[in-house]
């Protein structure tokens, strides 16, 4: 579903990603962990072209991101993204937030888009919030709407960049639950998170990133209980 070959990314002279290669299978849930500034967000943002690559190759959802003829907008329709700060469209209602992509990008009729949006709102546990504005919802509710917004495009892959880091502790669970349900349904997911419980329970594979490299990867049970690399050990000692 995702194939990354020797991905390098620099901002100016500063190299942030120093050769990342990895392969994500269909229906796989990959959790990315690592210290602040290690390049996790940058890696994720390269996967849907929000950041341009310096070099390397990415194939995602059957499309070649780096190909010369790639329509990046077409590609992004198949790759959903959920942000740390939710980024709901503040001037639109919850319903419009979810339907604007399908309506404007996929040219869905309003009736069809609304019907799908209502289903998704029910699915993320927020029926009846259609006419509210984002500022009227709690952080956890906003993030669940953001997930629904991404799902409305019927993506093949979902990318999550620290979806619960901006939330009050009591709201973390409700968002993780929605993500867990998605994983159970077989969605392919790449999740950057500090929630080690989620990584253990839902993740099929964990990548540990540090200073622009994938230092170590493995099954959650193996990596957490028996890390091989020194850097992984010292990171896990701090967060577990």
């Amino acid at each position, binding site marked *: 579903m995702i194939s990354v070959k020797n991905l390098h990314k620099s901002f100016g002279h500063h190299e942030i990603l120093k050769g990342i290669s990895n392969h994500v299978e269909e229906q796989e849930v990959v959790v990315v962990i690592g210290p602040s500034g290690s390049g996790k967000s940058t890696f994720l943002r390269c996967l849907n072209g929000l950041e341009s690559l310096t070099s390397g190759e990415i194939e995602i959802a059957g499309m070649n991101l780096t190909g010369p003829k790639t329509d990046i907008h077409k590609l992004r329709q198949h790759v959903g*993204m959920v942000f740390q700060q939710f980024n709901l469209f503040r001037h639109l209602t919850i319903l419009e937030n979810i339907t604007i992509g399908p309506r*404007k990008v996929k040219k869905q009729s309003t009736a069809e888009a609304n019907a799908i949006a209502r289903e998704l709102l029910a699915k993320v546990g927020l029926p009846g919030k259609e006419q509210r504005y984002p500022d009227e919802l709690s952080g956890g509710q906003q993030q669940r709407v953001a997930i629904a917004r991404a799902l409305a495009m019927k993506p093949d892959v979902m990318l999550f960049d620290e979806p619960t880091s901006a939330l009050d502790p009591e709201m973390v669970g409700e968002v993780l639950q929605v993500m867990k349900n998605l994983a159970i349904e077989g969605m392919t997911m790449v999740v950057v998170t500090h929630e080690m419980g989620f990584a253990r329970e839902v993740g099929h594979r964990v990548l540990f990133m540090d200073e622009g490299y994938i230092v170590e990867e493995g099954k959650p049970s193996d990596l957490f209980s028996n890390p091989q690399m020194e850097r992984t050990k010292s990171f896990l000692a701090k967060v577990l």
Partner: protein
Amino acid sequence: MNVVWDNLPVILGGLALTIQYSIIAIILMVVIGLVAALMRLSKLAPLRWIASAYVEMFRSTPLLVQLFFIVLGLPAILPLNQWVGQLTYPIVAAALTLSLNEGAYVTEIIRAGILGVDKGQKEAALSVGMTDFQTMRYIVLPQAFKRMIPPLVNQAAQTIKDTSLLAPVGVAELVYKGEIVIAATFASFTIWTLIAALYFIIIFSVSKCSAYLERRLQVDKR
């Protein structure tokens, strides 16, 4: 008071022209400002240069000089009067110059409004597959517009005042007509009082309307 009554038709004729020029210039300045602001934010460097040059040129010279230059100066070296028409050219050129001048300020207002919208909004729009144009049209501009209303209304008020500078290049607006009436009646104080009052009424009502509009937008959409 007789001076006022007797010359009211002339003065009101000038007022009509002032209002017409104001409306045209306010519409055009927003259109020009939007285009130039988008050019200034474009990925294409030449577009950015052209737009910056335009803004700097019109902001760094006085409007009155711009009017003299374009309305009276250019026809001295180019047969503009023949192309556009002897009578049409000054009218069109005056309106256009005023619009370009105000548009330079509007460019900066719109640009600042767009830049003031959180970057995450744009990224979220792109990540559902919207094009740059759709992102601007449906997500960024609607949010930028709300914060642009107060400075835009300010600029509209400025534009109405600036139409008075069209008198020296021969546009028979309020000030122009006032000078004619004063030349005939010597009622300097009365006529200038009347003219000041007329400007005040128009501009004051414009800002009151917009304050109302702004409150409405704030309540309905957050």
